[in-house]
């Protein structure tokens, strides 16, 4: 290999390092909400090509109802259409498999299905198929979406393309529920044929169908010829390669072995820019946060919980761990979301002195010792190190007990060990869902298993009972303010989405879900 290439490689690294250092030091601009760069001249989208995608994990199950992990959606979106779709820019509901719906009264939802939709195996997606799926969501033993379907009392076929749901009480979240896993329709024929193995099969009505699944290696999809919408499945097929290590995945895209990689760490931004790939960056709903167990000391005292906010320097946290790419936040919704509350900006500013005062007022003049459950991957360990140092300055001594990511829930929320946990919450499309999952007395995620503040349950109920958009916004703000004032948890920052792709990939837009969708994406001719 030539001297020049060696020098190039070396200077690439040096340049990358300089850029990183200045970003962490706060000197360089942290990076824009960039969209894909590329040709200024608009090219016409063309059909054809197979997009090779790198994913960090394989799906926990290809049965939308049985999966457990937020990453599954990347695999589910291509194969499954949901009854209700979501506008990725505004996060509002729009027609999916149901081309229209109505609420004749506050506890009835009528869905009018799109006619002529066919599953990958030829079974028609009609009212009976939808009824079968929703019943399964509600009652099947392996269904993990039962809790989402709790407000549905009955499902009835009221026409060849019409399904009517009766709700136990008014529930505006039902639309978003049907836009997520619970609303992803599978072919009843395939479910009956596969039985318990359906999780490996995945027969939906989405733009691509799953052709093969080689465990922890590759998943291959092919265009569904009878997909109902035009100009969505422009790609002939998708090939997902499972590469758990992000550096490795990026390298394969640089080398041309793959076309697209998502979920990159901020540490890789300098590399992407130097290697001639397209870079796409955006904010997501996924929030890094500190969960608190307020059913026992010291977090049973609201002043102590507020101290946890004041002791934090969110900006430094974001700079050190992501070179400023993560949006620091005191509420869980990103700017631009319909539920974002501007009045909460600037609250809980970094103030160690105030934190110490609050602790003293709460009866802890010598500070507190907190047992924290954390994740044991490198990124989380780095976050833990930053947090330990920051909190130490306010007399809050964090002691971490780290476990693999999938055990954190079991330990902190199941066995209810520890006072706090640091993890990422992948977020729900509807704020009501988010809050009820986090703060409902009976929710598994609520390690405290109790109402966190007076009026919270009532506020959450109220938000679900209204359908009008503005009324909902006010109701959601009310919940936010209660949670915020009572400091029921400590959001740190919003996880940034960083994707890299070859110059050939066109039409990709990031979304707040942080889970890439390939509808409308096309490959330019090489």
């Amino acid at each position, binding site marked *: 290999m030539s001297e020049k290439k060696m020098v190039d490689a070396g200077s690439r690294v040096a340049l990358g390092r300089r850029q990183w250092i200045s970003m962490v030091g706060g000197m360089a601009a942290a990076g824009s909400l960039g969209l894909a760069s590329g040709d200024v001249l608009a090219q016409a989208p063309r059909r054809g090509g197979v997009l090779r995608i790198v994913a960090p994990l394989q799906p*926990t199950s290809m049965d939308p109802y049985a999966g457990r992990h937020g990453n599954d959606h990347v695999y589910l979106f291509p194969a499954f259409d949901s009854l209700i779709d979501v506008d990725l820019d505004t996060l509002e509901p729009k027609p999916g498999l149901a081309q229209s719906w109505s609420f004749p009264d506050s506890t009835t939802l009528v869905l009018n299905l799109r006619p002529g939709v066919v599953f990958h195996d030829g079974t028609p997606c009609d009212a009976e198929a939808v009824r079968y799926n929703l019943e399964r969501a509600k009652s099947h033993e392996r269904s*993990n979406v039962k*809790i989402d379907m709790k407000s549905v009392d009955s499902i009835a076929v009221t026409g060849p393309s019409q399904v009517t749901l009766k709700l136990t009480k008014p529930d505006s979240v039902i639309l978003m529920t049907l836009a997520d896993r619970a609303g992803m329709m599978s072919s009843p024929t395939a479910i009956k044929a596969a039985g318990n193995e359906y999780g*490996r099969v995945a027969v939906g009505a989405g733009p691509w169908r799953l052709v093969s699944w080689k465990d*922890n290696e590759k998943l291959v999809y092919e265009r569904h010829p009878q997909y109902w919408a035009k100009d969505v499945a422009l790609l002939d097929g998708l090939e997902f390669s499972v590469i*758990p290590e992000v550096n490795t995945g990026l390298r394969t895209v640089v080398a041309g072995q793959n076309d697209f990689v998502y979920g990159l760490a901020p540490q890789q931004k300098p590399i992407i820019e130097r290697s001639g790939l397209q870079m796409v960056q955006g904010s997501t709903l996924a929030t890094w946060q500190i969960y608190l167990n307020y059913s026992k000391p010291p977090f049973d005292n609201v002043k102590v919980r507020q101290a946890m906010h004041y002791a934090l320097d969110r900006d430094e946290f974001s700079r050190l761990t992501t070179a400023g790419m993560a949006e620091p936040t005191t509420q869980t919704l990103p700017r631009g979301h319909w539920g974002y509350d501007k009045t909460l900006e600037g609250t809980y500013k970094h103030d160690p002195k105030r934190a110490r005062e609050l602790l003293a007022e709460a009866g802890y003049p010598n500070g507190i010792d907190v047992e924290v459950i954390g994740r044991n991957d490198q990124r989380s360990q780095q976050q833990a190190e930053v947090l330990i140092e920051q909190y130490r300055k306010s007399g809050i001594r964090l002691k971490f007990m780290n476990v693999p990511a999938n*055990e954190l829930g079991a330990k902190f929320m199941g066995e209810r060990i520890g006072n706090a946990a640091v993890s990422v919450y992948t977020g729900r499309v509807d704020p009501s869902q988010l809050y009820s999952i986090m703060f409902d007395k009976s929710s598994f995620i609520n390690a405290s298993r109790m109402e966190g503040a007076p009026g919270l349950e009532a506020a959450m109920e109220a938000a679900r009972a209204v359908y009008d958009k503005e009324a909902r916004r006010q109701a959601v703000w009310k919940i936010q303010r209660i949670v915020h004032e009572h400091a029921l948890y400590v959001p740190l920052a919003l996880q940034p989405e960083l994707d890299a792709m070859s110059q050939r990939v066109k039409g990709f837009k990031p979304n707040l879900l942080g889970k890439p969708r390939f509808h409308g994406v096309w490959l330019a001719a090489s």
Partner: protein
Amino acid sequence: MQGSRWSRLLGRRLVQVGPVAILATFVVFALVQLIPGDLAIALAGEHTTEERIAEIRRIHGLDRPFLVQYGTWLWDAVRGDLSVSLLTGESVLTSIAQRLPNTLVVVGSALVISMLVGIPLGIAASIRPGSRLDGFVTVIASLGIALPGFWLAMILVATFAMTFQWFPASGSVALTEDWRASLRHAALPAMALAASGIAEVARQTRSALLEVLSSQYVRTLYAKGLPQRLVFWKHGLKNISVTLLTVFGLLVNRMLGATVVVEAVFAIPGMGSLIVNAATGKDFPVVQGVMLTMVAIVIVLNLLIDILYTALDPRVDRR
């Protein structure tokens, strides 16, 4: 040897190995059962309820007594049913069948490199003990054993994959798909593993040869006037074949372990990464399947080596 002697030998070895194999399965099974905390909760997912957890416990038979679970598992395993992964639902046997070849390509290459480089080094050192060459080989051997395998792997990636770009930095290709690409992907990981292998082989070759060459038997041959080279090659090497077989067995065991960390550095979808993910995810059918496979490989290989000993050196007939 006559046929009946072979079968007696084989029978005897099998009787020795049998209890060890069964004990190994018991150890594998018992390990995972001792995990504190609740497996059912880990399986239930992000948002769940107490009823759902109890359901899961029932479905997977997690509430039956320990020996019953072990017995059922063993009985199934003997008939070829290693159950399915608790996390992905795929048959454990299939997962192992897919990943084992990737590990074997790397470990196999590492073994070949270790023997091909280590033996000549050991021989060269023993021909002139105390010489500079001997000192050099000793130093290499010491370094090789003290070197952390994954650190060497990182250095190899940084140098040969990132700076020089001679080899791919990660991943693997099936041997049957494209043998050239497969070997290119396996090259760096195999080198990382082979470092300690070369060291061990060189050391053992050298000391075994020195021992043989200074033995009464060989000294007598020299005294009789036989040329040094003839004695060396004919008698020296033949007698160290036993040592070489022992080292080979040791290396297989060691490398199957070391491959875990090396596979992590190179993101190779092999047995190593399978068991790390499964162990941290409490996916006990997979953990058991992988440990069982690795132990089986080691036991079978050592059995073969034992038999080869006796074939090569009839004097060695251990209990």
